[in-house]
């Protein structure tokens, strides 16, 4: 059942007097004009960071993991923290495009394309950390199960680390397919508006020869729906499996059954924060405020306050269980290593609490949710908080375990560890700048689809429909098949 009508009570998804052609013009303008100076400056900074990251990795590959300040007790430090952080960020895109598609949330159309691109780049960044943490990165292909001359020696299918290999690579592949299949019609639009031969050729290749045939659209809709149905459990499974990396171990602070839902909520939380950071800039710089409206920002802030509070409840539950279990190792981890402010890493726990649980509560206020500056500031705070969360989980659990003789000295990262992390920022933003320059950042075809139902200038037409008696309204507007 499909209703060709939307209530007056809902905010418009597209502002201004638009027709289909105007939508095309507005969204494609940024990729059809020369980039601004701001773009060049941003791109230059991103590439510089990327190059520093490449050099840091060169040191790591040449001289070994000793270039990082990891030790026997803290075997996972910044690298795995960053891995989990980036994977978490990579959850918003598929959540927006898949889960919100299944829930028929029309507002996803404005933000899904950029969020999906962000997902793909974030997962690319995430993948670097476990791969380079292996040390002998040239043997990284050993993690794939294939018949080999070493026995054949197979990978351990019972290990959460291998589940992670499958989860992340599947997630990356499916997100990429979902994103690109959605891009095809828009690339065809760019191709048909090409004003140079080179553009025509390259976008022609990239658009796969898309024509907009009705049969193709029918299959495309079916494909999107099934991919959304597949991606929804997938997106939940990926961070669940990442949490299994910790939860299936016997380290106090990791060995908890609450991890899967808690990690998934945290991932959505940080992912939406990153979407906010990027889109608030993009909508302003590209003049797309009619399409990524304040209403979109409001709705995403609602998701942020919800998931932030779920994460907060998880933190409190952990503290409670640390006491209730009466297990002295757990008690030590939760109540000394983490919650005691003056323990060596107490600052990171309270930083996390302040950023993730307390500060997002301002979004209960509608005024704050609709304030662009507050939202941008908060989106950065949330991502700092979520980085602290992963650092807290990994380092405070590891640095003092069962045997005091193996307790670690204070761990702080080396410059090459930091360099690797900043390098992934470089990779992420280099990709994002290129994406924003060469691809439509908003799904043009999908905006056109919602335009005549949810566009500001079209909504008043529905006033007389709303006044109709119910039976005739259903007869005219509900299309059942």
């Amino acid at each position, binding site marked *: 059942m*499909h209703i060709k009508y939307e209530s007056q009570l809902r905010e418009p998804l597209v502002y201004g007097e638009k027709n289909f052609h105007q939508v095309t013009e507005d969204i494609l303008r940024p990729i059809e*004009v020369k980039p601004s100076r701001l773009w060049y400056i941003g791109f230059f900074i991103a590439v510089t960071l990327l190059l520093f990251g490449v050099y840091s990795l060169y040191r790591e590959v040449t001289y070994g993991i000793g270039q990082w300040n990891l030790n026997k007790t803290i075997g996972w430090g910044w690298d795995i923290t960053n891995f989990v952080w980036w994977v978490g960020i990579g959850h918003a895109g598929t959540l927006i495009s898949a889960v919100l598609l299944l829930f028929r949330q029309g507002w996803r159309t404005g933000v899904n394309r950029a969020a999906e691109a962000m997902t793909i780049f974030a997962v690319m960044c995430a993948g670097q950390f476990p791969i380079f943490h292996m040390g002998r990165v040239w043997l990284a292909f050993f993690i794939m199960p294939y018949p080999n001359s070493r026995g054949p020696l197979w990978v351990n299918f019972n290990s959460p680390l291998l589940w992670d290999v499958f989860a992340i690579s*599947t997630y990356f592949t499916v997100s990429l397919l979902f994103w690109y299949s959605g891009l095809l019609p828009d690339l065809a639009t760019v191709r048909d508006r090409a*004003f140079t031969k080179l553009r025509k050729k390259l976008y022609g290749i*990239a658009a796969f020869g898309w024509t907009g045939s*009705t049969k193709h659209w029918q299959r495309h809709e079916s494909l999107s729906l099934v991919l959304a149905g*597949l991606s929804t*459990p997938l997106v939940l499974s990926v961070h669940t499996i990442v949490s299994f990396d910790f939860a299936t171990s016997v380290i106090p602070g990791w060995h908890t059954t609450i991890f899967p839902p808690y990690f998934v909520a945290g991932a959505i939380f940080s992912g939406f924060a990153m979407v906010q950071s990027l889109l608030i800039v993009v909508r302003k710089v590209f003049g797309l405020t009619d399409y990524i409206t304040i209403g979109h920002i409001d709705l995403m802030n609602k998701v942020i306050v919800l998931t932030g509070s779920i994460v907060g409840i998880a933190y409190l539950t952990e503290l409670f269980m640390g006491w209730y279990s009466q297990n002295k190792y757990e008690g030590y981890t939760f109540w000394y290593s983490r919650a005691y402010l003056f323990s060596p890493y107490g600052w990171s726990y309270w930083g996390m609490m302040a950023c993730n649980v307390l500060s997002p509560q301002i979004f209960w206020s509608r005024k704050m949710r609709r304030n662009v500056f507050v939202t941008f500031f908060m989106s950065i705070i949330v991502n700092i908080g979520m980085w602290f969360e992963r650092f807290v989980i990994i380092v405070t659990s590891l640095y003092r375990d069962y045997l005091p003789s193996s307790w670690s000295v204070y761990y702080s990262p080396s410059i090459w560890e930091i360099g690797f992390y900043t390098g992934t920022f470089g990779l992420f933003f280099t990709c994002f700048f290129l994406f924003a320059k060469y691809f439509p950042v908003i799904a043009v075809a999908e905006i056109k689809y919602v335009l005549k139902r949810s566009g500001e200038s079209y909504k008043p037409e529905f006033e007389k429909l709303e006044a109709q008696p119910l039976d005739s309204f259903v007869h005219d507007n509900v299309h059942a098949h």
Partner: protein
Amino acid sequence: MAQKKFVVGCFDEEKVLFPAVKQVRAAGYKIKDVYTPFAVHGLDHALGMRETSLHTAGFIYGITGTATAVSSISWIFTKDWPLNIGGKPHFALPAWIPIIFELTVLFAAVGMVMTFCWLCQLAPGVKKHHFHKRATDDLFVMVIECTEKTNAEDLMALLKSNGAVETDIQVAEEGWWFGTYDKNDDLYNNKQVAL
């Protein structure tokens, strides 16, 4: 590669398009296709197309993935190289659920996208005749193939009377071929972009 003759009618409103489709079909013409800038729901039914079976293909690919994962992991861990992992059973199905699930999703997604591209003849380097450039922008382009009995003038008049904003006759290739789009000299010229 056979050239065929087509009558093309362009519409700029969904509201006009649907009755026009009905009228043209009622007049006995067979609509080859309607090219639209976005998915117009219900148009496939109006054109009398059957539902796509792509989701069924997806299901088959999915269970292929499940079967591949279950059979290969169980063969590896019980027959080919049984590893003793803490004395636990070799056939450890619960521990394999994550990988079985991931492979199910992977096979279904990759298989479906490839089938989609195959059915719609979409691939890098594929070229097709485009009846109107604005079909990917703001026009709904109805294409009717001419037979020897078709009177193109009558048909164009019918389209016009049903609200077509543009009509013309084109002789074109029906299928697809390899090629790029830069060869024919039809760049988008009337661009007015504010810098």
